[in-house]
C-alpha cells in the first residue's frame, strides 16, 4: 500500500516536472542522466541507438516515427527494415544527419558521452536512458512514452510488466532459493555480478545468484571459485539458440561435483531476454522463474 502511495506521489511529482509549456510546440525534458533536452513535441522522426530503445519505441506503437536504428536492433522484425545508423561504439554520424531526426534516443550503457555531446552539437536533441534494473526499465518506458506523447500506451505496457513481475514474485515467495550460476561468456568464464540486470532477474525469480556479491558487473570466474560456490542451477546465456551449446555442456560435464551438473540442471537462455532492458525482460524473468521453480508454474 505504502509503495502505491509513493509511486502515485512520484508520478504526480514527475508530471509536475515534465508539465508541458502551454503555448509552445517544443518541450523541455530531463533525461535519465540529468541532461536537459528540448524536444519539438511530439517528435516525428526518431533515431534509436540501441536494441532495447528500439523495442520500447516499437512497443509504444511508433512504427512510423522510427527512422533509424542501430545495427544491433533485431527485434521486432519490423526493425530490420529501418535505416541502420552504426553500432554502439561507432555511430555513422553522416547517416544520422541525413535522416534529419527531431529526436535521438541513446543509452547510457553503451553510447559514450562524447557521442551524445557530438549529436547535440550537430543540432539533434538527444535523450539518454540508463535503466539499471527491472524497475528502472518500467520507468524508462514511462519516460519515453511521455517524451513521444504516448502516455496511454506506456501506462499499459508498464501495468502489464508490473502485473507479470508481481505474479512471478508471488509464485516464488517463500520457496527455497536455489543457487544459480549464470554464464555469459565461455572463454574466459564470465558471470553476472551485483549491478547487472540478470542478477536482478535471478533474485526476482526466486533464485540466489552465486556471484551476487561481486561488485564488478561482469566478473570473470575461475573454475575453482565456481566449484566452491557449488551452484544448483547453471544458466547459459546464448546469443545463438543452437550455437555451441553441446560443446559448453560437455565442458561442464567434467565437473560432476557441481550439484547443477550432477542433477542435469543446466539450461540455455536467450541472451536478448535477460540483458536487454526492454519490456521483454519480463519474459526473461518468467523464463528463469520457470527454470528455477518448475513445480510452481506447471499448475498454471
Amino acid at each position, binding site marked *: 500500500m505504502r509503495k502505491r502511495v509513493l509511486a502515485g506521489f512520484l508520478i504526480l511529482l514527475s508530471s509536475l516536472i515534465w508539465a508541458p509549456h502551454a503555448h509552445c510546440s517544443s518541450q523541455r525534458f530531463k533525461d535519465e542522466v540529468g541532461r536537459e533536452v528540448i524536444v519539438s513535441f511530439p517528435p516525428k522522426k526518431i533515431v534509436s541507438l540501441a536494441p532495447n530503445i528500439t523495442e520500447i519505441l516499437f512497443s509504444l506503437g511508433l512504427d512510423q516515427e522510427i527512422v533509424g536504428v542501430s545495427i544491433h536492433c533485431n527485434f521486432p522484425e519490423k526493425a530490420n527494415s529501418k535505416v*541502420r545508423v552504426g*553500432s554502439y561504439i*561507432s555511430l*555513422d554520424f553522416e*547517416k544520422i544527419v*541525413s535522416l534529419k531526426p527531431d529526436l535521438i534516443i541513446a543509452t547510457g550503457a*553503451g553510447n559514450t558521452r562524447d557521442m551524445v555531446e557530438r549529436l547535440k*552539437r550537430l*543540432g539533434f536533441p538527444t535523450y539518454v536512458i540508463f535503466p539499471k534494473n527491472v524497475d528502472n526499465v518500467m520507468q524508462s518506458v514511462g519516460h519515453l512514452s511521455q517524451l513521444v506523447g504516448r502516455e496511454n500506451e506506456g501506462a499499459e505496457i508498464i501495468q502489464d510488466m508490473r502485473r507479470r513481475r508481481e505474479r512471478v514474485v508471488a509464485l516464488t515467495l517463500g520457496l527455497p532459493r536455489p543457487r544459480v550460476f549464470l554464464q555469459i561468456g565461455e572463454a574466459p568464464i564470465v558471470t553476472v555480478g551485483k549491478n547487472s540486470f540478470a542478477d536482478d532477474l535471478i533474485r526476482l525469480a526466486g533464485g540466489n545468484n552465486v556471484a551476487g556479491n561481486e561488485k564488478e558487473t561482469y566478473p570473470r570466474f575461475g573454475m575453482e571459485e565456481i566449484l566452491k560456490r557449488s551452484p544448483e542451477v547453471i544458466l547459459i546465456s546464448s546469443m545463438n539458440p543452437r550455437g555451441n551449446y553441446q560443446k559448453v555442456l560437455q565442458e561442464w560435464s567434467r565437473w560432476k561435483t557441481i550439484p547443477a551438473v550432477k542433477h542435469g540442471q543446466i539450461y540455455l537462455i536467450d541472451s536478448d531476454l535477460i540483458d536487454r532492458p526492454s519490456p521483454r525482460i519480463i519474459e526473461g524473468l518468467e523464463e528463469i522463474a520457470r527454470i528455477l521453480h518448475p513445480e510452481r508454474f506447471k499448475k498454471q
Partner: protein
Amino acid sequence: MKILTLKKVLLISALLGLILILVMILSITMGSVKVGPYRSISILLQSILGLKGAGTETEKTIILSLRVPRALLAGLVGAGLSVSGAIFQALLRNPLADPYILGVSSGAAVGAIVAILMGLGTLSFGLPLASFIGGLLTIFIVFYFGRQEGRIHPNTLLLAGVIVSSFLSALIMFFLSVSQREELRTIVFWLMGDFSLSNYQAVRLIFPYLLFAFFLLYAHARQFNLILSGEESALQLGVNVERLKLISYLGASLMTAASVSMCGLIGFVGLIVPHSVRLIFGPDHRLLLPASAFVGASFLIASDTLGRTLFSPVELPVGVITAAFGGPFFIYLLRTRKVVKIL
C-alpha cells in the same frame, strides 16, 4: 648521392602538397551518405569563400561538420606521426624505430585510461589533456633514465624507452582487466585509434604544437644529415651533437604526444611513411621531413576514408587500414628498390 637543391625540395614539396589537397578533396566527397563530388566541392568552396548557395542544411552539416574536420585532424596526425617517426629513426639510428618506441604512446594511453576510469571523459577535452600529460610525463621519465653522464646514448635511450614502455603496458593491461564493460569499450577504441569524434577544436588545439615541433626539427635538418655519418665526424664539422639529440628527442616526442592525444594510438604510419619516403626520395632530411609530412597526411586521410566507407555504416578502425594497405605497399617498395638505405 645527388645534390639536393632548394629548388628540388620546393618542387617535390609542392607536388606532394598538391597530392595531399587532392586526397583531402576526394575524402570529403566520400562517405556513407552520397552527396556527389561536384556538390561537396562547391559546398566546401562556398564556406571557405563565405558565399551562400547550393547544398541543403543536411549536406552542409555532413561536409563541413563531419568530413572536413575529420580529414584535417587525420592529416595533422598523419603528418605528425610520420615526421616524428623519421626523427626517431635518425636519433636512435634504428630502422625499427617509430614514434611509439620510446613509450610516449604507452604513457599517453595510461593517461587516457586513467581519465576514462575516473570519468574525466565527461569534461570537454579531459581525455586528450590527460593523455597529453601522460605522454609528456613519459618523455621526461625516459629522458631521465636514458641518459648517461649527461649524454644521450641512442642504445641506452632505446632500452630505457622500451622498458618504461613495457612497464606502462603492464599498467594498461591491469586497468583493462579491472575495468567495466562500458569503459572497456571506450578504452579499446582509444587504443585502436579513432577519428569519429573529430572536430575543429581538436584541430586547433594540436596544430600549434605540431607546427612548432616541425619547424624546430626542420631548422636542424642539415645537422641530422651530418650526425648520420657518425657523431664523431659531426662534432668535427661543428655540430653540437648533444644539443641536437636533445632537440630531436623532445621535438619528436612532443609531436607524438600531441598527435595521439586526440585520436588514440594509430599504428604503422610513423614506421612506414618515413621509410617509404626515404626509399623514393632519398635520406636527406631537408626533403625527408616535409615529404614525410605530406605523404603521412595523405596516407592517413586516405586510410581513414577507406575505414569509414568500406563497411559502412560500421567503421573499421583506421589502424586496420594503415597496416593492411601500407604493409604490402612497403614490401613492394623494398622489393623494387633493392637497396635499403635506411639511414
